[in-house]
């Protein structure tokens, strides 16, 4: 278990990491501890534990890496952390129960899923003003802005749809039915595909953004693991775009999918109930937060092997990484 470090320990840590360090930082939200764990992305040493609002889940960095946005669902607030000072700098009025969010490429707007209100709140990051609200299906969660910032997609866990918002008009232009309980949406870097993970449905739907139709459905199979436990949640494309890493929740595995063939090529055993992950700045490692074992598993991307796990806080959920 991780407790906020005593001040002297923090000071000592700062001494160790003082001076020009090129190591990146890993931020992990701890849903039960109401903290963000900050780790060094090379040594995996604890840099700091930052207290935030109640039930932090989604974490995302601004494109310039200066700010980390933390959705504190039960606090009905979005905490903003200054990534240089590693402390809370301000709060955004996110609307009730924010869970996940996405930021456009310019770092201008943040799109927030308000789970309890069936809303996507669009907010100007600088001023914190709400510049739009788009009603979507029940329990919105997964959020993704398309490359080029034309569209934002919200997945509704209860309605089981991917809702497509035209960012210019701030209006829905399509609603795509997917399998039960869609949790995350991700566009490929070229914007030609939208991938949506369905936790209870146990599938990933690949959607064509020109027609907004499901063109392929990917399912999972691990010998000896009950099929209903293979529940895709968090997804991340490798930096070269050739593979997708997907956390499979109660199957305690990360699935690796070849993005060209859409075949699952490997399953990597990690800690219990992996939720979300992120790649290291150089793309060589994948960090995944294990909700039930309170740790972060580090996967080597070349060998597709889990190298080690490091402790974080209780119920770790979201991961963000900055260089």
């Amino acid at each position, binding site marked *: 278990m991780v407790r906020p470090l005593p001040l002297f320990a923090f000071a000592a840590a700062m001494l160790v990491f003082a001076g020009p360090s090129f190591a990146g930082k890993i931020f992990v939200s701890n849903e039960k501890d109401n903290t963000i764990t900050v780790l060094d992305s090379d040594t995996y040493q604890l840099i700091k534990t930052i207290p935030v609002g109640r039930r932090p889940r989604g974490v995302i960095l601004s494109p310039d890496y200066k700010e980390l946005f933390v959705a504190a669902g039960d606090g009905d607030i979005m905490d903003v952390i200054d990534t240089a000072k590693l402390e809370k700098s301000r709060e955004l009025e996110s609307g009730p129960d924010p869970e996940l969010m996405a930021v456009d490429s310019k770092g201008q707007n943040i799109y927030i899923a308000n789970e309890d209100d069936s809303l996507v709140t669009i*907010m100007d990051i600088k001023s914190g003003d709400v510049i739009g609200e788009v*009603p979507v299906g029940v329990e919105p969660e997964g959020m993704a802005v398309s490359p080029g910032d034309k569209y934002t997609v919200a997945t509704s866990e209860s309605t089981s749809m991917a809702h497509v918002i035209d960012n210019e008009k701030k209006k829905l232009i399509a609603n795509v039915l997917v399998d039960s309980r869609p949790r995350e949406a991700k566009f490929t870097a070229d914007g030609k595909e939208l991938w949506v993970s369905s936790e209870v449905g146990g599938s990933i739907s690949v959607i064509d953004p020109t027609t907004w139709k499901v063109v392929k459905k990917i399912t999972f199979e691990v010998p000896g693991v009950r099929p209903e436990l293979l529940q895709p949640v968090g997804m991340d494309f490798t930096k070269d775009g050739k593979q997708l890493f997907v956390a499979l929740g*109660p199957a305690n595995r990360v699935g690796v999918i070849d993005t060209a063939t859409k075949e699952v090529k490997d399953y990597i055993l990690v800690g219990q109930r992996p939720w979300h992950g992120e790649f290291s700045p150089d793309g060589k490692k994948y960090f995944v937060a294990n909700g039930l074992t309170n740790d972060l598993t580090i996967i080597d991307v070349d060998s597709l092997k889990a190298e080690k796990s490091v402790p974080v806080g209780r119920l770790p959920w979201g991961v963000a990484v900055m260089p």
Partner: protein
Amino acid sequence: MSIVPLLRRAKFAVALSLLTIWVLSGASLAEEPQVPTAALPAAAKPTATPAADTKPAAALSTPAAPAQNEAGTPEAPAPVKIPVYYLGKRYQEPLPLSYAERPIPDKGIQGARMYAKQANKSGAFVGMGFDLIEAIVPENGDAVAKAREILKKGDALIVADLEPKDLLAVADLPEAKNSIIMNIRSSAEALRQEDCRPNVFHIIPDWAMRADALGQYLILKKWPRWYVLRGDSAADKDYLAQIERTAKRYGGKIVGETVYPFPPGSRNLDSGYQQVQAQIPMVTEQAPDHDVVWVIDTDEFFGDYLPYRTYKPDLVVGTQGLQAVAWDKSYTEYGSMTFQNDLYKLAKRDATERDYTAWLGVRALTDAAMRAGKTSVPDIKQFILSKDFNLEGHKGIALNFRSWDHQMRQPVILGGGTRTIVSKSPQEGFLHEKNVNDTLGYDEPETKCKFPQASNQR
């Protein structure tokens, strides 16, 4: 903090509440026969969505009609309104043992209202709407007559908050043959066995599932010796028979069984606890050696008095103490806080099991309609029985119905009477060749239910 977002929020809240009013406009708590304003005729026309003509599997991956997508906004009234009936009766229910616990007169219906709202929000995206029509008769009312009224309009989607006798009488009406009746209230075993009906589906776990769920946990804990202290109602005897079955299946042993001998009524005494404090040790003193006391008291006469008052320091499980339930107010997993919070907002009280089963009953019917892209009752039933029917219900896995008795397959929560849930069954190590959730309750080879023709297997 800027005032702009607040204003925007206020404006939007007004829009939302207008939407809510529209959604609920067809619904009212009433005795009068309810006619939905925009109800479909009996055999509803197929929907305008292209999905209607494709196989359900294809419909899953097909977005709604493009025209609808372009409209996009959920505020637009849905063109098709499907009635969902909540058929109930205000039976006299046991009062809580403690005066401090308030009786809840609206168990169930609040959960149904909650999902009707959600279904309309979701349905707006696929051009479907749902009218929840509340048909609840008084204690001396006639639920069967009410059902006849409903069925005059043709096949119906019915969420039934009825006791077994009324439920069967409704199910056996000739005009109910092709309707779908969701049993959200009764755990009676016969409804899934010799009295099973092809038009009835059971959302609520039966006594066998509850006994197995608790039994697995007790076996896992190596507490196999059970002393049964029970009431003597029909439901009590029903549960007892299932505990005996569980003992046989999982290696438990009922070491003794006693009918609670004292007349109920201590709750009405001042200082009743003194009497209770004397009674409970007397009842439990003679018990043979046991690991737990398994209480069966569906009428809530004495069960809640057992913990801390037994002759020996006993654990209490059953209808009080640690219970096997479909839902509990302390359950927080798999997004269930959304359910707990929404129900609290709507009903101004904590959720009960029946709120959940009613919510899930409405959900099963409306989700099936939306996923299948169909509005006619037989089409919806066919989809519910197909392998494409995978219902989300905050249990972490997709829920569906057993083909052999229409009982919903589901994990069962062990909680109730505790401030956090204790566990969820099936327990690790209880294996099944097809689906571990079929270790709870009657499996296919044991069932006494025979439907006229084989339903789709799953």
